[in-house]
């Protein structure tokens, strides 16, 4: 038997105190699509970093076509025929497709760029990748799915034998994803080996020749692509996934947030910022209320306007917290009223990535742990230990930098930070974005647990199935207005119909 195109053996990697790869074996044959599944923090991105030369492993062996290789930098990996297509595509938006395909590898004559020759060669490459785009187009003018295809063409331009794709379909529409599948199958037919990272289980059967599941920095199983989804989920999460959603509220208390015909008037209206125009909804103690609606109907903006984030302005109409009129519109006012907010962008606005877990956890309660303005290390330690225990942040190292934690554990730190203040209302924007199935369940369970302690939760999500499974009530928004409220027993079709109807109203 000829040696595998790619073979990893006993690869290990530490990040500070985190053992990210605990001896991983992985192989890839020519013309094979090998899907790598894993939760956030399972180690799949680290493994891909090792493959692409961006991360130097602490131990282990990499072989390409049987030859041991050492990648000290992405350049080495590139030279060995490994091309990586990261989630954040490394294209230069201000250049055209041709210039991007030949970036660092330009065709020149006597030191001068040969634009026409480059465009022609680029057009050929695009054709080879099955992409029907003009090579003279600016990358900034392309949609995300088209950029993905350009990135693949770029990898082919470098004569890659091994293509590593990190969640390529995550941001694609279903049509774009279909096209991507076709291109990948095409590559496969030409003998390219593809490592395809994903956490979309439904993709596996369509594209994979082989599936490897990682958990906790280890390979926990290898399956044929026909393996039932339940089996894959069990491997991913490490336990049978009997029920994704927790049971609903047993009892509901007094109203916390009450909006009636409320509107928010931004001081400086911005295009693309759909201000809440006519909002009526109530969130009670112990209740999880969902905000549904299509993209751009103002879900995020409603949460932002309640928390005083994203725009400055004034509320009109009835805005009440716990039965008393509340003046919301600034972060300070919202926090005094007992409102906490979890952003949809935990890396950008939720956390200080290069600060420690302790620093991040305490960020919203410094006032409470600094008597007379003086820092108290004992108080800090106690509160952090408590929070890490309550929210099960792993590893239990208060001094670990947040950047070294897995996505799921980062999200736990965000929750811990926001809930340290003991708020009465929690606003959540896309709480499970970029989070996989196991971490999602854990977030749902935790939210239900918080609600049972009397917290009111208002959650905006673009995933209708999530809202239907989690929420006690769902409020549908259209063009800044709340148009309908559904109970817990609402059918998916009915809610979807209300979300998608009324387009003519928006056009008017």
């Amino acid at each position, binding site marked *: 038997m000829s040696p595998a195109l790619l073979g990893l053996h006993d690869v290990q990697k530490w990040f500070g105190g985190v053992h990210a790869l605990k001896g991983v074996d992985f192989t890839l044959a020519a013309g094979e699509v090998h899907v790598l599944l894993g939760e956030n923090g399972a180690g799949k991105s680290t493994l891909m970093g090792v493959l692409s030369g961006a991360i130097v492993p602490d131990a282990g062996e990499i072989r390409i076509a049987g030859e041991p290789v050492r990648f000290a930098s992405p350049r080495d990996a590139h030279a060995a025929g490994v091309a990586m297509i990261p989630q954040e595509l490394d294209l230069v938006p201000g250049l055209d497709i041709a210039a991007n395909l030949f970036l660092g590898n330009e065709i020149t004559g006597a030191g001068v760029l040969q634009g026409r020759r480059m465009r022609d060669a680029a057009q050929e490459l695009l054709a080879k990748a099955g992409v029907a785009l003009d090579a003279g187009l600016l990358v900034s003018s392309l949609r995300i799915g088209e950029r993905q295809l350009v990135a693949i063409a770029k990898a082919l331009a470098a004569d890659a034998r091994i293509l590593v794709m990190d969640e390529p379909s995550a941001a694609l529409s279903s049509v774009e994803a279909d096209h991507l599948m076709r291109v990948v199958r095409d590559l496969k037919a030409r003998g390219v080996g593809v490592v395809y990272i994903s956490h979309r289980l439904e993709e596996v059967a369509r594209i994979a020749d082989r599936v490897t599941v990682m958990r906790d920095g280890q390979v926990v199983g290898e399956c044929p692509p026909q393996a039932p989804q339940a089996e894959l989920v069990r491997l991913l999460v490490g336990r049978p996934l009997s029920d994704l959603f927790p049971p609903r509220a047993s009892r509901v208390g007094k109203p916390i947030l009450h909006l009636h015909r409320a509107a928010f008037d931004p001081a400086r209206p911005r295009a693309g910022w759909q201000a809440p125009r006519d909002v009526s909804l109530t969130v009670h103690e112990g209740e999880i209320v969902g905000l549904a609606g299509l993209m751009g109907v103002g879900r995020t903006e409603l949460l932002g306007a309640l928390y005083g984030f994203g725009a400055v302005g004034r509320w009109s109409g009835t805005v009440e917290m716990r039965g008393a009129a509340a003046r919301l519109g600034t972060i300070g006012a919202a926090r005094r009223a007992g409102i906490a907010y979890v952003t949809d962008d935990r890396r950008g606005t939720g956390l200080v990535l290069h600060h420690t877990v302790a620093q991040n956890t305490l960020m919203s309660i410094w006032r409470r742990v600094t008597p007379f*303005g003086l820092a108290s290390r004992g108080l800090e330690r106690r509160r952090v230990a408590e929070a890490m225990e309550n929210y099960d942040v792993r590893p239990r190292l208060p001094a670990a930098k947040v950047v070294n934690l897995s996505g799921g554990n980062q999200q736990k730190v965000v929750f811990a930070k926001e809930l340290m203040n003991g708020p009465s209302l929690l606003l959540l924007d896309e709480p499970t974005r970029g989070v996989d199935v196991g971490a999602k369940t854990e977030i749902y369970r935790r939210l239900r647990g918080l609600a049972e302690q009397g917290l009111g939760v208002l959650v905006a999500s673009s995933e209708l199935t999530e809202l239907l499974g989690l929420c006690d009530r769902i409020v549908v928004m259209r063009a800044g207005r709340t148009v309908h409220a559904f109970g817990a027993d609402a059918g998916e079709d009915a809610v979807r119909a209300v979300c998608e109807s009324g387009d003519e109203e928006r056009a008017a």
Partner: protein
Amino acid sequence: MSTSTVPAALERPRRSPLAYLVRFQSLLGLVIVIAAGIGFSPRRHGHILFLQTDNVANIIRSIAETGILALGMTFVIIAAGIDLSVGAVLGLCSVLTAELLVNEGWSLWTTLSLVVATGILFGAVQGFISTKARIQAFIVTLAGLQAARGLSLIASGNSFINISYGAGPGKAPVGFAILGERIGGVFPVATLVFLVLAALATFVLNNTRYGRYVFAVGGNEKAARLSGIPVEAVKISVYAITGLMAAVAGIVHAGQFSFGSPNDGTGYELNAIAAVVIGGTDLFGGAGSMVGTIAGAVMLGALANILELNDVSAALQLLATGAIIVMAAALQTFVNSGSGGR
């Protein structure tokens, strides 16, 4: 996640020894510089000149002013800002001190209060403009540098103001001369001012809520704002602190040298920034150490002294300082890239 076989708390962190090196790099650098100072010091009658009381007193006197500036600069840089105006504000405040004491005949305490207030106000205005108009601090304080120079030329009538001590018009109160003196004939009063402020700054940065806020704002401004931290007030206040420190340094300058000169303090801001960087503070904000800054300032002073003792030219002294700054920054970047930091 919950099925992990090793209890998470038992997983030992593997901290690279280099991380410790960076944490203490300025102290280590200081030790090296002092050792080198002893090793390379010229000797006279068997005595090591570098360690002579006079020489040590000279070193610690020479660092007082940039040291004071660097204390303020540490707050600003940890808050992810920069203040280029401190050298010019030092010049302005030295002129103002001399002018008010000598030509206006103001009392000592009124003069000092007004000068300090000027420094604080100057810094706070820069912080306010930078924060509210969202102009980069680099630009605002570069403009502030020019403005402070212009103001000091106006205040001094474009001339050098000599301070002579005594009673009556045209003389400064005798008490002010203390800044140029040495306690017991050895320990410079200017250095004492630096040490007191250094202790205060270290305490505020490490042991107060305000210090925690400064780190959070510098680490991620948006996350800090969402967590309810008064981001704008913190950002404005750090410039008020650099203004305050520049004013004190200006007063010390006037007292040490008994004059106010509108062009003094030129380039001091860069020495202050150098001390902060050598001290291990991250120019991107969010991380840093006041003790490091203090060690960095002493180290720069000691280094200049060794080179001077050995008659190394001023040009080579500048080169050596440059090399040390690059080494300090390179060490940090190297370690941070390894630990998954920035």
